[in-house]
């Protein structure tokens, strides 16, 4: 509900709210620079006398809440003339400067140049703004795992979503305050909010004239800063009076005696309006206004990131042809909040379809066991949201499982998706498995988990599912052809030609990027080292994935490929010559990005696994401390990126480079190098360092053991670091 409200309140109003916010931020600068503002030692009587001396025809003295005093006088030739008065002395400073641009901005801010219709649009937008902040906070609380966790560091998910939340947390108080005060003021404009002070009763005038202003008892001792307006009596009318309005109230003053003829305190509604006006405009509290003004600039940023989140979510929506629930042998039910789990489900659907099976893919909320007449198995792929809540597309699933008269005959497989960085990892999938068990539903295979959208464990799980189904499943068949591009090789560098493990660094030209991809920042429009390049070898339909060693900003697509004995794809790739082409697509892998930050990075890679790590170092223009542990066979002919690593070390893109050679004497592996460096590694971890590991499974296990030993004295281990998102692996 919150998500729907949030999205549909935001999209149509993003432009209006951004215009209102930007113009409001600009207007918030105005109170900082008010002509003639300053402290005055004069009381209002003395001050008004000085004003009349400076502008003899004065009919009215006004003071804005921002502190500008003006005298209004009448010149028959030109009409009303407004003169700026120095608040300290009462001296005239010259005519009021015309501010057509400020007037224009104010009209945009309040009414979009559309008069009352525009005012109503802005009011509706302000109401929507409040709804957006409330629904947005509810979504944030869900994502972060509770209201208490709402201000914890944001981790996981796409960058647009992270930024959206971080900006929102900063901007929300000012946006709510500005919207609510705007609504109050608009309510007054349209007469809904009561306003005004009832005029006081007035005792009869003396009928005399000519009292000096600085001798009037009613004006003595009144601070100039309290003044709102002093209206002079109409010339030549002995019955006319001075009307004084101050922040304290309204009073009538006899022009002959200077005595107060009547007084009414400022009404409560007017005092509330004074405060509302102060909070909204910053007039009278310029720095507060500036702070609020800058904060509401969050709005256009939120519009941008919000639209990016929405577009990204849309492109993940299911779009494959679906077998009807009654006819499919395999029912795949998806519980997903943002849409990432759908990608895994579609991959599974495509793989089963390619193997000749029939699949019905549906959200978990569509669970209807009575319709699954041809089903041989039911697969539930469920993400958890926040504190183990049901994701959006799984609403009501658990209730319906609990209400089943008898469990479906088709056995169940449950796969949980989550992120160990969040407190209740896969809690919802566990609840599904428990509920199914309680309902007596036979399990096809034990429940399993996928952490942080990792591809490798998913592949493993699909392998086990295939075994249970008695078929062979080819997970990477689903690459849709519209995502595939042709990449042309620019250059290749070969290493270890004499060994059994020849490895090449292949550099391809950036492909042309369609406008739609550019706008949606998908495909090759935005990628970083650590993302995956899926390569389609000639003569096969299965993609092979390679970690990228370059980012979009490097201007080329680079991968490291080790030629596998008998490997189809690696064989084709390592025999490419410059100018040759391959078909490939880009798969984001946000779990293995060198997230921005000042804390040190400890990169550990072996063989071709150094590729993405080299990419992180290459992109490290801000020179954060990156420590690379690189394991390869020998120093001769097998130092991938050798000359660049030396260069980056000299430039400071690498803080240190430690190598381990497994075919030299003595044989050392990266885990040995880490152990030797234990004290330094421990101190880096104590400084908040993040560990990123890329390479084979054996190496990853060895490295984890080494970290267990190194971190034991600190009461830490790789599992704890993983939970904080500080220990990530890319294993092949």
């Amino acid at each position, binding site marked *: 509900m919150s998500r729907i409200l949030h999205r549909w309140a935001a999209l149509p109003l993003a432009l209006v709210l951004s215009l209102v916010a930007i113009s409001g931020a600009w207007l918030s600068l105005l109170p900082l620079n008010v002509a003639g503002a300053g402290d005055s030692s004069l009381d209002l009587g003395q001050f008004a006398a000085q004003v009349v001396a400076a502008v003899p025809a004065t*009919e*009215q003295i*006004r003071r804005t809440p921002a502190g500008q005093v003006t005298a*209004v006088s*009448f010149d*028959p030739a030109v*009409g*009303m003339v*407004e003169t700026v008065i120095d608040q300290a002395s009462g001296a005239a400073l010259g005519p009021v400067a*015309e501010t057509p641009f400020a007037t224009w901005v104010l009209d945009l801010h309040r009414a979009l140049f559309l008069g009352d219709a525009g005012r109503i649009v802005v009011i509706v937008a302000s109401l929507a703004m409040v709804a957006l902040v409330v629904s947005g906070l509810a979504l944030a609380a869900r994502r972060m795992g509770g209201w208490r966790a709402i201000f914890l560091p944001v981790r996981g998910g796409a960058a647009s979503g992270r930024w959206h939340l971080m900006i929102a947390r900063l901007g929300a108080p000012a946006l709510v305050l500005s919207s609510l005060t705007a609504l109050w003021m608009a309510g*007054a*404009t*349209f*007469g809904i909010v009561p*306003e*005004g*002070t*009832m*005029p006081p009763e*007035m005792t009869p005038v003396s009928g005399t004239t000519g009292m000096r202003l600085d001798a009037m008892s009613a004006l003595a001792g009144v601070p100039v800063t309290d003044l709102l307006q002093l*209206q002079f009596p*109409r010339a030549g*009318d002995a*019955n*006319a009076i001075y*009307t004084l309005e101050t922040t304290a109230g309204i009073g*009538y003053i006899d022009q002959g005696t200077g005595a107060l003829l009547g007084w009414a305190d400022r009404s409560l509604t007017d005092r509330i309006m004074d405060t509302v006006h102060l909070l909204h405009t910053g007039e009278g509290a310029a720095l507060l206004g500036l702070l609020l003004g800058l904060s509401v600039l969050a709005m256009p940023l939120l519009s941008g990131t919000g639209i990016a989140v929405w577009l990204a979510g849309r492109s993940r929506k299911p779009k494959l042809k679906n077998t009807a629930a009654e006819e499919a042998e395999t029912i795949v039910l998806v519980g997903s909040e943002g849409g990432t789990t759908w990608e895994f489900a579609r991959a599974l659907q495509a793989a089963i379809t390619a193997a000749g099976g029939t699949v019905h893919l549906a959200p978990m909320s569509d669970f209807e066991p009575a319709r699954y007449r041809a089903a041989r198995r039911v697969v539930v792929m469920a993400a958890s949201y926040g504190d183990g809540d049901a994701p959006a597309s799984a609403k009501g699933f658990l209730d319906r499982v609990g209400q089943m008269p008898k469990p479906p005959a088709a056995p169940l497989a449950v796969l949980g998706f989550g992120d160990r960085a969040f407190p209740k990892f896969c809690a919802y999938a566990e609840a599904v498995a428990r509920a199914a068990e309680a309902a007596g539903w036979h399990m096809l295979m034990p429940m399993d988990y996928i952490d942080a959208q990792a591809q490798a464990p998913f592949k493993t799980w699909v392998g086990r599912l295939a075994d249970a189904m008695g078929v062979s499943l080819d997970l990477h068949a689903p690459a849709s052809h519209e995502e595939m591009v042709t990449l042309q090789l620019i250059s290749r560098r070969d290493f270890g030609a004499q060994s059994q493990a020849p490895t090449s660094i292949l550099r391809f030209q950036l492909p042309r990027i369609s406008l739609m991809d550019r706008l949606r920042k998908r495909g090759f429009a935005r990628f970083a080292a650590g993302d995956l390049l899926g390569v389609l070898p000639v003569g096969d339909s299965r993609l092979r994935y390679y970690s990228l060693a370059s980012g979009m900003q490097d201007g080329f697509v680079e991968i490291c490929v080790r030629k596998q004995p008998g490997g189809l794809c690696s064989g084709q790739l390592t025999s490419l010559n410059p100018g040759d082409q391959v078909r490939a697509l880009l798969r984001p892998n946000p779990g293995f990005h060198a997230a921005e930050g000042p804390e040190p990075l400890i990169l550990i890679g072996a063989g071709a696994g150094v590729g993405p790590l080299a990419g992180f170092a290459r992109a490290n223009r801000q020179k954060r401390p990156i420590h690379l542990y690189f394991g390869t066979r020998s120093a001769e002919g097998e130092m991938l990126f050798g000359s660049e690593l030396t260069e980056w070390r000299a430039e400071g893109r690498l803080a240190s480079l430690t190598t381990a050679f497994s075919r030299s004497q003595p044989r050392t592996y990266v885990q040995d190098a880490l152990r030797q460096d234990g004290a330094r590694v421990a101190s880096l971890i104590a400084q908040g360092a993040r560990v990123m590991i890329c390479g084979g499974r054996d190496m990853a296990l060895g490295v984890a053991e080494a970290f267990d030993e190194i971190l034991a004295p600190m009461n830490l281990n790789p599992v704890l670091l993983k939970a904080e998102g500080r220990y990530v692996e890319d294993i092949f």
Partner: protein
Amino acid sequence: MKPLWTVLALTTALTLPSIAAAREVTLTTTLREYRGENAFLALYMTDASGAYVGSLWLAASKARWYDSLSDWYRATGGSYAEVSGITGASVGAGRTLTVTLDLADALIDAGYQIHIDTAVEHLYSSPSEIVVPLTSEGAGTPVAGRAIIDSFTYSM
């Protein structure tokens, strides 16, 4: 602006004994070419002593600004009952407001005065910018204002 017809029947002083004892009066107010938003105007009558007797017309789109028409507001407390049925839109710079109404004969040549208070948001207000006696003789003679009114004429 098209003529607006109204019958003043709200206050004792202006109550018509019968329509026969009334005269059609047209009030024409032309504003100066000032710079600023539309102006609010209150047209009302006082007796010879300056005491308020009744409202003729209120050109103010929003009640929020009634109090800036300060003489009129002081006399009426901004009471909506005083102007029910005789309000209209605010008036832009350089524009003319024409109001036609039936006024009791007893108000003419009897010391009663027409007042106009004006106010412009963010600019200034001018209470009793126009004060002119309602006489047969004065009909048709333009009077200049002292703020934003270029000229005011009444005819009957």
